[in-house]
């Protein structure tokens, strides 16, 4: 299990073989280039550390236990991430696909509800909006 908060975009991770796994499922959150008809240049992420890191770790441990996962790797950005780049990756390995898919869905829902991370859009040709 790994949990990382990195400055800037999340870089690709080479998927390794996981013994006993029948499924490796990876979710990547990508910064959308458009929102409500406006062009987005980037999102700027703010994290409350170390609480954000600790909570991501706690969610990863709970997912391992609840869904009997074989591996969990979490990476999230802090700072500026340009449109089209990856700001969040959650990768799980499981014996069967169902528990892996369920684990990723539950992890993302919990992260968006509880983990102290905020994002602020930077629109093209406009001043920065309030964090949301």
């Amino acid at each position, binding site marked *: 299990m790994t949990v990382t908060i990195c400055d800037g975009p999340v870089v690709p991770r080479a998927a390794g073989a996981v013994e006993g796994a029948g499924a490796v499922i990876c979710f990547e*959150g990508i910064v959308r280039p458009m929102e409500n008809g406006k062009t987005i240049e980037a999102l700027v*992420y*703010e994290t*409350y550390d*170390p*609480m*954000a890191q*600790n909570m991501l770790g706690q969610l990863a441990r709970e997912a391992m236990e609840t869904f009997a996962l074989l591996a969990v790797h979490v990476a*999230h950005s802090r700072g500026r991430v340009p449109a089209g780049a990856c*700001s*969040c990756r959650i990768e799980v390995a499981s014996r069967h696909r169902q528990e892996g898919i369920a684990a990723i869905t539950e992890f*993302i829902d919990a*992260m*968006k*509800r*509880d*983990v*102290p*991370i*905020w*994002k*602020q859009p930077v629109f093209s040709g406009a001043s920065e909006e*309030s*964090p*949301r």
Partner: protein
Amino acid sequence: MQLKVLVFGPIATAAGGRTLQVVVAAPRELDAAEVMRLIAEAYPSLRPMLASSRLAINSKYALASDTVAPSDELALIGMVSGG
């Protein structure tokens, strides 16, 4: 006694800074619910955001009855938006 409360994201923008200052007139034992009430009194403009906010004590979400010590790190966590 004065408490400092860290804020982030939209609450920091609304507050015009990264820290809230809450004065406790008579030093006494406080719980998290009372700290939230004191924040609402000191920062009326933040009241609409407090209903969806939680207090964290030393980087953990607090229960309303959790006691706050003067040395604790307090943070007001509003709606989050990771991912």
